């Protein structure tokens, strides 16, 4: 939970660079320019996180689609996907399902490579993307060890946009419509734990629709923190069940725990 580490691009410079200026500066300048104004200290009272109970996940993918609907993501972009594997040999077989939202790492790899500071760690621990600053270079996609980021190529589900697709997305509270030539088309997109919902006291859409009640969400900074959807004590969930984080060895300190 070390929010101002030296060398973090988000803290390296405070020169705002808008997208057009940046593009004009040329790709060679990427490494040099790096940075923008999104530097805010960590709020010690809030750290949003998820605890996903793999024994309760039934692999239905409702989370994936709920997210799609809530955030108006285009074809090929899914913030929370469910990975699936079969192991063993007949008749001793196992199947596992693992939902993978953004890990909202305390030590994110993505923010470190972002040349414009468009992707940054919020005080509440959520890693956000400033669409106005994102230049679509996709370094962050390559850097993310979890594959949690995707690029918005501007594809649509129906050629003349069905009524749902025409509606603006509430992401970041910005209410942007997907129109050619403007954000978020051409930007990198990712899970935000539905921070536009958190902002008004509601839980992330994936956790709300989980039919197995596998996705728990809440404030890890609160010692009495409870799941905002199902009410369990977060601390107890972690204390009473075996748990893990993905690619722990990389040191990204994900905010998503899995109960095994």
């Amino acid at each position, binding site marked *: 939970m070390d929010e101002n580490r030296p060398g973090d691009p988000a803290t390296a410079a405070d020169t705002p660079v808008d997208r057009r200026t940046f593009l004009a500066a040329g790709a060679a300048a990427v490494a040099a320019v790096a940075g923008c104004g999104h530097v805010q200290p960590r709020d010690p009272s809030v750290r949003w996180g998820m605890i996903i109970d793999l024994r309760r996940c039934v692999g239905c993918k*409702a989370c994936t*689609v709920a997210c799609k609907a809530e955030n108006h993501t285009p074809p090929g972009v899914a913030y929370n996907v469910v990975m699936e594997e079969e192991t063993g040999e007949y008749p001793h077989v196992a199947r596992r399902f693992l939902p993978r939202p953004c890990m909202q790492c305390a030590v994110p790899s993505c923010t470190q490579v972002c040349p414009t500071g468009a992707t940054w760690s919020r005080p509440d621990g959520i890693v956000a993307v400033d669409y106005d600053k994102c230049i679509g270079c996709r370094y962050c996609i390559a850097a993310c060890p979890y594959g949690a980021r995707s690029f918005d190529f501007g594809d649509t589900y129906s050629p003349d946009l069905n009524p749902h697709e025409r509606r603006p997305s509430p992401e970041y509270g910005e209410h942007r419509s997907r129109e050619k030539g403007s954000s978020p088309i051409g930007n990198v997109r990712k899970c935000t734990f539905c921070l536009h919902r958190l902002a008004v006291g509601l839980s992330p859409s994936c956790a709300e629709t989980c039919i197995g009640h596998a996705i728990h969400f*809440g404030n890890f900074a609160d010692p009495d923190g409870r799941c905002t959807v199902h009410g369990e004590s977060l601390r107890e969930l972690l204390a009473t069940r075996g748990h893990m984080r993905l690619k722990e060895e990389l040191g990204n300190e994900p905010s998503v725990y899995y109960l095994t």
Partner: protein
Amino acid sequence: MKNSRRKFLKDAALLGATPMLARAEAPAASEGAGIEYHRNDPDKMIFSVCLGCNTGCPTKLKIEEGTIVKIDGSPYTPWTRVPHVAYATPLAEAARLEGAICPKGQAGMMTVYDPYRLRKVLKRDGPRGSMRWKTIDFHQAVNEIVDGGRLFANLPGEESREVEGLKALRALREPKLADEMSKAVAEIWKSADKKTAVAAFREKFKDHLHLLIDPEHPDFGPKNNQFLWIHGRLKGGRSEFFKRFVQDGLGSANFHGHTTVCQGSLYFAGKAMSEQWTKDGWAGGEKFFWQADQSGAEFIIFVGSSPFEANYPPLRTPNITEGLTSGRLKIAVVDPRFSKTAAKAWKWIPARPGTEGALALGMIRWILENGRHDVRYLSNANKAAAAADGEPTWSNACWLVKEDGTFLRSQDKFVAIHEGRPVSFDPNDVATAAHGDLLFSGEVEGRRVRTSLRLLLDEATRKTVEQWAEICGIAPADIVDLAREFTSHGKKAAADAHRGVSQHTNGFYNCLAWNSLNLLIGNYDWRGGMVKASTYKTTAGAFDFANPDRLKTFGLGLLRERKFEETTLFDGVYPAKRPWFPNATDIYQELLPSAGSAYPYPVKALLLYMGTPGYSLPAGNTQLRVLADLKSLPLFVASDIVIGESSMYADYIIPDLAFYERWEFHGSHPNNIWKVQPVRQPVIAPLTETVTVFGEPMPISLEAFMLAVAERMKLPGFGGELRRPEDFYLRGVANIAVDGTPVAEASDEELALFEKARRHLPPSVFDLAKWKAAAGPHWKRVVTVLNRGGRYEDYEKAFDGALVKNRYGKQINLYCEKVAKTKDSMTGKPLGGVAAWLPISDSLGRPFGMKDGDLHLITHREIFQTKSRTAGNPWLRELQPENSLLVSVRDARRLGLRTGDRVRVVSDSNPEGVWDLPNSGKRPMIGRVQAIQGMRPGVVSFSLGHGHWAYGACDAWIDGSLVPGDPLRGAGVHANAAMATDPHLKDVCLQDLVGGSVSFYDSPVRLVKEP
């Protein structure tokens, strides 16, 4: 929120041991204050009901400027939230609470906003199935369909084809005459001398014989019966509206559904087991089934069902996963495929498909021989005995059955042996308890008799446990383990059987066997045992839906749902031309083949609603042939939201409203222990064209079509009080509102929210004054129900100690005497009355099985597709763009196949491996192999919902313009056409002649690698 949380904590304390905890409120984020987000505002949402599948999850539709932007589960219902919030919770509070729904539910708006939706009436402009159409005016279509004539004179070959319209088919119009004829036909069926009875009928009605289909066979009924109605998914409210048109209005006895393509034999096993003894004999059997109460069970065997994927998933899953993680519940899964449910099971038993009944009998044998059955429960012979034990139900396990298959009777009473002496009793006696010995076999008054339970034991001991296991292809220890665990939890264990058990040629007896297992532990109506659905009444209370001017229907239905031997078609010879079904109804697969073979009589017009027999049924290719045949079906009208696989053969397609534009009362499911009634209601402005009927503007829908036909034909029961669909449905909502203790009247605040939430609906749908007028004095209660999308009993009300509150509470037949008194119409053999395992067979009772090298074809469901109607949904397609043919790794190696290989599915009845689409070419059945460990070797499965050839997947020409299809909608394989046709009948799939189910899982196929 705070209040409801406190209230819940209180309720939880009352209940004692609920594992659920209160929900914490999410604190507002430090960043982002000032964010505008209105999706949870109570005036920007309408509660309705999903129809992504039959689960019908109650939903909360969030609306922005008239568009559905997000769908969530309703917090008010047991489908979608555990525990659900109290019904009295104000809307403003509930608006901030979400419920959980599946991916189909989340994606529902993409089905509603499908670019391939129909908006205008289409009329065929080429041969049937050629996908050539013209749009025509709604009223012109209505006039043509009513009046008939040379409707397709512009098409080559049809220049002189006269089509009889509905006016001509409604030959009999006199209610009084219909009533008299109906009674006279019943006399013919009762009579021993049919010839004389028919002659008497002909004499009595000599002036009216021209109204009959065939005066030689008055029991065919009037010509009106030549109008055939077939529906796919149809629930309450719409059901009564459509019956008012088809039965009461047109006077046709042919109103048929699709039950047997789902789990018919499970339903009709439920009917046979729920028949009650009355002064008129066995009566009142309900077409229904029981399911396990997953909220209280300690052990459930899911047999041929996968509640995480296809068996009402949102309603069942949270209680199951809670039970699995808390340690309350253990599950076993019997399924050749390692399903997502099996992935969480204590034990996976990949029994050979079609041997589910054998597995049950092996367990029954072990349980009875080891004395692990509930002797006390089973010994209760009547209601009084059950009541004395605190048992809501009782069985006929100890009743004596004679050699001829009927119960031993002493005058009008039944007989058991108690403490060595015969006792007679009335099953419904509430004063004198009767008990009986369970396994008696011997002579009483010179007659050989055995108890029902003894008959079951004798069936079970036909084989040893080892032999049963061998039939199933599993280890004997598996049977013993299952049986031991099943009998180790008192009444908190349940065997929950579904499609994998019922959709075989032996489905009925398989279902009897699994239900019999439940009887052995007497778990009916107990928490954690087998339970049934309970719903609020829709058809009476505030407004009676009965139609006093109705035309009474009579005569044989096309499906021959009675004893062959009673009818004028029986001449003492078996087999019948086609099977008869005295123990089942809604035998979907037999409808079109019966029309195709004009048995028992020809059909003149078909109206097909939300069904697609060509796509959904096994060997659906045989169904398409009839749909395309002008002689078998001279007039074919379909109601659909797109041009589907079956509606593409229609002469006219009347565009229907999609499920978030219309009304329906969705009802409940057996595992739901709360009394409920979800109300589907219009959420958005309809996409179909607006028309005027009875002077009222309304969107084109099937109701609008029926109202318009009724207006032109002056059908009874339409017009006047019923001019708009809302007139009907709002009265149904009023009935729901007043059932039992009426719901509270809506507050002024909720009345205002109600109106504001509907501000985007056009007057053709939402006209406040007209809605108020329809609901009359019940208006404010109607608003309470509509604001909550239905009526739902409060969480804590469903429990009564160790029992459930909403009970079945009657006799359950271990031995089904009514069935035992019927015969197989093909072989002439009497049917058995007790559970048994029968080998897979064809319609003549000849064994039908696998040859060396064959793979056994089965199907499964992924939660993100529903059989026929979700392939147009791009969000769902993204989760699985195409399905695969799942085979075991061992089979793949043996056949030289690898994952990703393209193979063609061929079979003896479809050696070419194609869908032969009349007038539309051939579509090969080719899919990709996926080799997995989680599949029983010898079995191949594909998930339903892919491989569409219509539904927007192919090109159409409308008014001369090309509407190009989207091939992504047709990706994957739909291998139903490889499923076996019946070797004797040849024009239909294999079927269970007792319970009516189609066989989905008994077909041998081969996979041929494509170059």
